[in-house]
């Protein structure tokens, strides 16, 4: 079983995010970078599938040089090899452009299964995995909390509003992860030592056989970033008794906020 994990390095979820002077990107100086949490589920699931079915787990990421650290962490968790696609032309892409690049890289690689996160918690696009599947003309199943592989097919349980749906797809296929799929392992110390010797190739767009002009300008382009409006409230409801406090809250929700 040749398993591919699409992995993005993102700011740690607790990071303070500030807007850079250009107004269309974020300040990156003080950010701690980590593996996108949903891609951690993807790595973990890939390792479990490899234990059950044999094969190799290859991590593919498109991003700047620092993404090497995230790939190394995945290798330390147990993945076999990594590929970083690093190219100035890749850095200004939108989700569709990134998907095109990842799909191009995958055209030269043999695979049975691709696992991606449902979303990257930086751009929150929910797009790249599904778009990669389309560019490769393979089926995709999103928001998966359970999978089972047998006889060249994968059966996935995906979450939908108010419940779950079970679908089946022939391999090769792509699925995206959802909380509940697994508990990702930590990289062990021996794992970290071993990861240093695992293959990690850095490739440019021409190495994977596409020309920057094929990607083109982003179709979805950030015009401006702004901070969400601050909530002024913070009003602590006070009163003589807990009953009067509760009554006052209900009154303001009813009369002032008009949400009851």
């Amino acid at each position, binding site marked *: 079983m040749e398993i591919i994990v699409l992995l993005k390095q993102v700011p740690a*979820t*607790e990071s303070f*995010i500030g807007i850079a002077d250009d107004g269309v990107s*974020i300040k990156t100086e003080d950010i701690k970078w980590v593996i996108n*949490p*949903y891609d951690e589920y993807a790595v973990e699931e890939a390792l479990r599938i490899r234990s059950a079915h044999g094969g190799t787990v290859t991590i593919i990421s498109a991003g700047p040089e620092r993404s090497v650290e995230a790939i190394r962490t995945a290798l330390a968790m147990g993945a076999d090899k990594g590929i970083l696609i690093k190219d100035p032309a890749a850095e200004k892409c939108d989700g*569709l452009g990134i998907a095109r690049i990842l799909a191009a890289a995958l055209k030269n690689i043999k695979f049975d299964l691709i696992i991606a996160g449902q979303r990257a*918690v*930086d751009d*929150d*696009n*929910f*797009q*790249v995995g*599904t*778009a*990669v*599947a*389309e*560019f490769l003309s*393979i*089926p995709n199943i*999103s*928001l998966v909390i359970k999978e089972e592989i047998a006889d060249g097919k994968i059966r996935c349980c*995906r*979450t*939908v*509003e*108010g*419940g*779950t*749906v*079970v*679908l*089946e*797809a*022939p391999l090769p296929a792509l699925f995206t992860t959802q*909380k509940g799929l697994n508990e990702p392992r930590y990289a062990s110390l021996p794992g970290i030592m071993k990861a240093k010797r695992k293959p990690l190739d850095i490739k440019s767009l021409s190495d994977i056989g596409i020309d920057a002009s094929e990607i083109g300008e982003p*179709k*979805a*382009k*950030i*015009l401006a*970033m*702004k*901070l*969400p409006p601050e*909530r002024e*409230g*913070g*009003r*602590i409801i006070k009163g003589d008794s*807990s009953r009067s*406090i509760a*009554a006052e*809250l*209900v009154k303001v929700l009813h009369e002032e*906020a008009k*949400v*009851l």
Partner: protein
Amino acid sequence: MSNGVIAITEQSEGLFRKVTYEALSEGKRIAESLGCGLTAVVLGSGMENISNEPGKYGADRIIVVDNQALSEYMTDAYTNVVADIVNKENPSVLILGASSQGKDLSARLSARLNAPLAMDCVDVRVENGNIIATRPIYGGKILADLALEGKPQIVAVRPNAMSIVESSGAGEIEKLDIDVGKTDLIFVEKELDTGKVELTEADVVISGGRGMGGPDFSVIEELAELLGGAVGASRSAVDEGWRAASDQVGQTGKVVSPNLYIACGISGAIQHLAGMSTSKAIVAVNKDAEAPIFSKADYGIVGDLFEYIPLITEEIKKIKK
């Protein structure tokens, strides 16, 4: 000139989802700004009794594709059919709800049609005939204005973010017979808890955190039921095994934007705020006056949730009478 706006509708158990009405209303607003018509697309099987509904939200035309193979949402069949319709109609804008179905479908369509996508938008405006969509990124820490270049401009709207406005459209029904084309996916089964209010669509969400102290959420369940709302949870409450993973609100859980969000025994970690900060009114009940949730809440009560929530429930019953 503009070739119109197409809204893709979505049903669950024979009824349109609330987010479909939101997408139709927003689609109508966009169509008016562009000076063009709104067409609704209804896919499924056996939808006779609801097919004309989009007319009440401004749809001038309603394209109905009734096919057994569309009775369940399947990425491949739906993408094939919608792509066919788009190729025939050549719309400027495609709008749909960013539900689990809408996110999957819009992502696949954007790749199929090589079309720009603004996912999970909270605001949309039209400038010089082009869409500018506002969407939260970095877990809502930033709002980005996105310009979309190309055709159709695909806009997926966050559930509960757009207001529903009734307006009359001709609602002319056109039945289309479209083959679903090549498909790989096979539907096996589904399991829905239809009695439960869906978290992402609820007008009121009441969430419990570690402060619940255990799996007994009955005090907040009772309040949620009274308000027709849904119960959510912090990651701590989910990790403790008190609630299902599907109840988690936050950066690695569901994103909700109800009219009223009540956080009970939740400290207000940044990852939790990411899932509820676009709620219209936020209330926090927490024992600790220093809890960060209070700086993000519109109204706060410092105290024991087990004392206050039942009192709040009683007081609401009084005004509901």
